[in-house]
């Protein structure tokens, strides 16, 4: 696996921002009332993430260490503003349903987190692929949650009636508590799948999908059960 596909794999599976890193929980819980909202939010975050990773990686030798946070925020905020205007102009319905969560992409911790931990230390191309991987991982997570919530909460998926008309929608799933239920269940589900792979005793595979963090720098590697 070369370093670009490794970055994509890392963002989509190993360090999936929604199910493993648990980052960006605010939009994850708030806008996933339908699958289309999940995709919209995920993709707009992806665009901002790729562009900001790219620019921050380019500027990484210019930005002084002591003011890096304000500098990152300025870069991210500029891209978010661009995306916001573009969405308002071209996809007004999605813009209306995402509402305040578009400007709030500025403070999405995935974006700042990737800028801080990856883009400010690595060359431009890997940083962009890191952004694509993370963004697609986020989109994947949000879409999964959105599909389940929309299916149970209104009997539809992508606005198409899937369940029979006689199905009585369980409205709580498109309200706030439902977001927590679905997120928790999906996270538990993927943990079960990871645990099964670990139990087969494949250390290399275990390292790949383990806890999603860098084991070389992990303080718990002596006691961690994943590597035994």
């Amino acid at each position, binding site marked *: 696996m070369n370093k670009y596909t490794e970055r994509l794999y890392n963002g989509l599976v190993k360090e999936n921002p929604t199910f493993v890193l648990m980052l960006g929980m605010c939009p994850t819980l708030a806008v996933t009332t339908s699958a289309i909202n999940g995709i919209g939010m995920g993709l707009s975050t992806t665009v901002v993430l790729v562009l900001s990773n790219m620019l921050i990686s380019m500027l990484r030798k210019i930005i002084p260490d002591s003011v890096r946070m304000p500098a990152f925020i300025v870069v991210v905020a500029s891209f978010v503003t661009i995306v916001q205007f573009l969405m308002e102009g071209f996809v007004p319905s999605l813009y209306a349903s995402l509402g305040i969560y578009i400007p709030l992409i500025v403070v999405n911790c995935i974006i700042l987190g990737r800028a801080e931990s990856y883009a400010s230390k690595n060359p431009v191309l890997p940083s962009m692929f890191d952004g694509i991987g993370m963004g697609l991982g986020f989109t994947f997570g949000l879409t999964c949650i959105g599909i389940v919530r929309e299916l149970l909460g209104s009997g539809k998926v992508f606005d198409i009636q899937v369940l029979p008309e006689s199905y009585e929608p369980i409205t*709580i799933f498109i309200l706030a508590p439902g977001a927590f239920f679905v997120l928790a269940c999906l996270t538990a589900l993927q943990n079960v799948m990871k645990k099964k792979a670990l139990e087969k005793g494949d250390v290399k595979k275990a390292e790949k999908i383990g806890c999603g963090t860098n084991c070389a720098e992990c303080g718990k590697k002596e006691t961690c059960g994943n590597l035994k």
Partner: protein
Amino acid sequence: MNEKWNVSSSPHIRDKATTGNIMLLVVIALLPATFFGIYNFRSENAWLLVVVTTGTAVLTEYIYEKLMHKPVTIKDCSALVTGLLLALNLPPTLPLWMGALGSVFAILVVKQLFGGLGQNFMNPALAARCFLLISFTGKMTYFVYDGVTGPTPLADLKAGEAVDTMSMLIGNIRGTIGETSVLAIMAGAMFLILMGVIDLRIPGTYIVTFVIFITIFGGHGFDPQYITAHLCGGGLMLGAWFMATDYVTSPITKGGQILYGVCLGLLTGLFRLFGGSAEGVSYAIIISNLLVPLIEKVTLPKPFGKGGEK
């Protein structure tokens, strides 16, 4: 001779009360309200909903504990109580599968996922009722009595209409299965008090606080008719005697129990008078359940010998 020297760790004197015994007493105390509800809503086949909801609760507990290889605790009747309380809190016309879904939610999500009996952070039956109320608002607020659809007396009262207090006392009115008859509920509550399962502290402070709140903010002053209607309407009596007193989700300190009762009374009054819907007992109880750890913290008694002058 050997038995005399039997060495064991404390406690050496045990009370006969076990979880199973207490839960069984609660079930017996709920029977008058249950049977009255089944009789009252016989044309809506309320018995079927009671059986399905209670059965699903017990079954869910059994299946979960079997799957998780845990000791099966259905014999302590706690799942039975949860299922029965949930059934008493549902309108008789609710589709059966919704009752079953509520039971699964109560046992699986609220009780078992948090560690089983004694670990649940709020009353499972009420949490499930609120889950159903949010999910199926229409079905959960659809009340029928004797084939006639309409609002509950409590909703009438909120709308400013006259209500018949006497029939609210006896229970031949619209409402959920178990909440309509104050007499049947009181009979069960008396039984629990006599058996020493509950005491007056929580229900007493709850009802007194609620009456004071209603008197001050109800807009009717001290009007016995209005206050009686509020006390007999809705789930106040069922909630105060059977659900607010749940051992797991109420404070254990004496001061805490009084504070908890005051919280319940204030919240119920607030929801009923100023809230959007006519009823607020369920929400008042589960919100107060969440406050219990804090209430216990501030009312922690001093151990003997601690504090004082230095």
